[in-house]
């Protein structure tokens, strides 16, 4: 097979490269970081190449081995998929660098070197598997393949969460594994219903066959419940905070920034593409209500936490709610904006939440704990990390010019356009609550302590501080480069062309 810039075959690279890297990491004992970094870098460049292809040649489909559906496996590219791929590639690269800094720092600690080395040994192959799974999820064009990628993600996520080896994290990750399996099984059951009704698994074919039958409704319900379990929408969020907060810092980043986005992405595609004809307004309203509850409940819980990582984990619960509030607003005049709302929200959250968890991890390494009331004086010793935390917090609050601001602007304007002003109230209340929990920590950073009671004063490596800052800055300035993501999106969904007849800015 020859890889020219214009062949669709590049699309398999994001799946295959990390998979190979994962196997290599597993087999080799040394240089695992170099292998992983090479894969992450390659993934990064391929993501840009695919976007270039999309802009030049439009959406593509690649039939693996030349087998067309319904027999073969399809990979396809379009705007939303590639933006999610890009999000994974960018944060993935930063996570790889951060994890390197993290494990080096831990291993340099003379206590329990063996355990830290073992953690690192398992981390790299699992992380590469996760990357392959996520990329596969975004690119797959076939509903059963998606099940496989979901399983891959679920199993590697649960194993990653268990890496820290502490009893709390093991309990949490075991619960996570069970929930994840339950979600996958429900999803599989949904596929069975779907296959019974339509007889095909390819998304494109299913789309044409979707009709309002009982089987389809059952399939929709089962797929939704399965994916919601994995996305941790309130009230199915109970497993998320302990699993995310007790994991190792790089793992928390992966789980919070990327994994929940994967299942959400799938859910969103199903609701707005596959099942769009049979989704009723009341169902959309129901999802929106759950999202609103999630925003408020997650934020209130985040305000009440005493540990930094738990607070950030609850903030994820809250931020996921915004993605669902977009559902009921999809039917108004500017409804096709719904993809851009979701994408901007997801991209900002991925970058900002990664930066925040990275900063929390660095603070933890530096102080040896993450109790919010004892964080005084960190600003003086870790200025870059604190700055990254602050900027990420600003993005999460949705202040301009972050990407979340663009998303919130669109949410607000569609809620006014359709006179559903209560969503606007929820959105603004969520922002204000986010302000409270972000700055509760921030003000502690600014306290000048009486005596310098730090556990150790080893300087942190730049790998622990700079990836966080760069991701935070990306999330903050995403709003300023909004026309580019919009342009990429407009290549994907046909609905987009209708609202911007005059072309994009």
């Amino acid at each position, binding site marked *: 097979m020859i890889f020219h810039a214009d062949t669709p075959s590049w699309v398999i690279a994001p799946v295959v490269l990390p998979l190979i890297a994962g196997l290599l990491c597993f087999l080799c004992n040394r240089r695992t970081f170099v292998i992983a970094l090479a894969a992450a870098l390659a993934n990064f460049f391929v993501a840009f190449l695919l976007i270039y292809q999309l802009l030049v040649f439009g959406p593509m489909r690649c039939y693996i081995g030349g087998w067309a559906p319904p027999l073969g496996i399809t990979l396809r590219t379009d705007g939303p998929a590639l933006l999610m791929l890009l999000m994974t590639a960018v944060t993935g690269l930063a996570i790889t660098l951060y994890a390197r800094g993290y494990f080096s720092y831990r291993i340099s600690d003379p206590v329990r070197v063996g355990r830290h080395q073992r953690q690192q040994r398992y981390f790299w192959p699992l992380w590469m598997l996760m990357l392959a799974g996520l990329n596969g999820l975004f690119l797959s064009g076939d509903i059963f393949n998606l099940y496989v990628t979901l399983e891959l993600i679920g199993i590697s996520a649960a194993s990653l969460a268990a890496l820290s080896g502490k009893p709390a994290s093991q309990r949490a990750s075991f619960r996570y594994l069970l929930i994840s399996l339950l979600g996958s099984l429900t999803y599989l059951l949904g596929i069975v219903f779907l296959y019974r009704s339509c007889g095909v698994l390819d998304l494109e074919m299913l789309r044409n066959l979707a009709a309002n039958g009982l089987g389809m409704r059952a399939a929709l319900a089962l797929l939704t419940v399965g994916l919601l379990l994995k996305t941790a929408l309130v009230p199915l969020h109970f497993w998320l905070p302990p699993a995310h907060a007790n994991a190792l810092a790089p793992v928390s980043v992966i789980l919070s920034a990327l994994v929940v986005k994967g299942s959400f992405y799938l859910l969103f595609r199903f609701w707005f593409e596959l099942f769009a004809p049979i989704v009723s307004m009341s169902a959309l309203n129901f999802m929106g209500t759950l999202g609103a509850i999630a925003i408020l409940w997650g934020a209130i819980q985040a305000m009440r936490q005493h540990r930094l990582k738990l607070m950030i984990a609850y903030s994820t619960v809250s931020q996921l709610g915004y993605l669902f509030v977009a559902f009921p607003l999809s039917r108004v005049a500017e409804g096709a904006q719904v993809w851009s709302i979701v994408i901007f929200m997801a991209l900002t959250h991925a970058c900002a939440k990664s930066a925040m968890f990275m900063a929390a991890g660095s603070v933890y390494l530096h102080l040896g704990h993450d109790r919010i009331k004892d964080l005084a004086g960190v600003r003086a010793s870790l200025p870059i990390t604190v700055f990254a935390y602050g900027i990420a917090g600003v993005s999460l609050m949705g202040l301009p*010019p972050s990407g979340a601001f663009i998303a919130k602007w669109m949410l607000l*304007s569609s809620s006014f356009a359709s006179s559903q002003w209560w969503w606007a109230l929820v959105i603004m209340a969520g922002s204000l609550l986010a302000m409270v929990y972000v700055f509760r920590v921030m003000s502690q950073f*600014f306290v000048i302590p009486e005596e310098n009671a730090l556990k150790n004063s080893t300087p942190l490596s730049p790998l622990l501080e700079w990836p966080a800052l760069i991701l935070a800055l990306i999330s903050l300035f995403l709003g300023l480069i909004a026309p580019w993501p919009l342009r990429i999106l407009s290549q994907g969904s046909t609905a987009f062309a209708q609202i911007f007849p005059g072309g994009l800015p």
Partner: protein
Amino acid sequence: MNSGQLLLVAILLSSFIPGIIIFCLPEEKHRLRTILNLCGSIAKISLVLLMNAGIYYGYVFEIRIPLIPGVELLLNGDPLSALFATLSSVLWLLTTIYAVGYLEGSPNRSHFFGYFSLCVTVTIGIALAGNLVTFLLFYEMLTLTTYPLVIHRGTEKSLRAGRQYLIYAFSGGAVFLVAVVWLQSVVGPVDFSAAGFSPSYLDTHGTVLALIFGLLIIGVGVKAALVPLHGWLPQAMVAPAPVSALLHAVAVVKAGAFGIIRIVLDVYGAQNLLLLGVLPLLAAIATITILYGSVRALQQDDLKRRLAFSTISQVSYIALGMSMVDQPLAVIGALVHLVHQGLMKITLFFCAGNLAETLGIHRISEMSGVARRMPLTMAAFSVGALGMIGIPPTVGFVSKWYLGLGGLAGGNWWLLLVLGVSSLINAWYFLPILIKAWFGKQQGAWPEEMYIGRFETSLMLLVPPLVTAFIVMAAGLVANAQISPLAWVRFIVRGYTL
């Protein structure tokens, strides 16, 4: 990119780049930091003056950056933004000099001056904002950049004040965002240069537009400290003196007042507001704020708190003038007060800082006979205080004169009453201070006396208040000259059809 756009970018960068460099500088590079600050502020003043000349001769300064359909960032230099930009950049230079002297030897100076520069960048951004989205962007940024300054001391008290400041400011910002989006969903994108949307919307959406006007005023009213949204301002007095000076005279409170001017003149437009009939409400709030602030100021013994309540009252003159937007004279009074209040208030805060820094005086009851120890400082203070009362030939008189004329021209006799009562109370809370300081006897030793420099205090602390006090007098004396703030304000008002 044409030269006008380059100039706008350069104006913003002239404080942004020094700010970023200062963040990266090590703490002990004192001299380099000061040089950077001074070069930045002098460059900014020259660039702003250049822009003013361009604006006067009708040159267009405009940058548009589209974000999403219907939302774009727009920087636009018009006469009104020139007024605010000039005020901020000139006072920034003086405050920087003052802050260098004030923070001599205190910790975390690189952070302080970094945020200080960012804060001025953002303030200039507010001045140059050409539509509501851009205004909102810088308005929220202002909260973020001033927060570290407010809690600079890192004590429990300053953190509490900071928390309150954030809650007030971001709640205001949230209300403002909702109002902006709502307004845009009704009338579409509004550029300030349009000076008001088409009156045809009033027939169809009258109630909604009145409601949105209320929300917008609440949004900016938090920073402008309109009663009952003023609670954060007296608390924020725990910040170091240069920060208080900046907050009150240039950045935060002024940004709110400037927002009110923009909303009244450029978003809604005088004609629309008269038709909507919401202006009496604004007038009522402004009057209440003026009187309430003055009365509360009377009760304070802490000098900075008294000044804070005086700010609440004085800034509302601007809102009061804008509520009579159909009277050009009242509008002139309001606009010129934006500058005049800044000059007077910054003088007073500089002097209060000098007293605290040199003698450890924080309370008015400790000020007995202080003018003999620090005559120059107290002379500047007296000029500022007399200006606040409105005694000619200070600039305070000019503002009140035009406000009064505007009220008379519109037949609003009650306005004269408000002005009179408020001036009376101003005199009541400022004159005793002056009498005590000049004619009182020193009682015991000063709380914490320090001898800094050859004069009564260090030269860097002494020169800025003297300069601003001189401007307070001079701009009042030559108010009719070609280059006075008043002349520029007349030039602004000529651009509107009121």
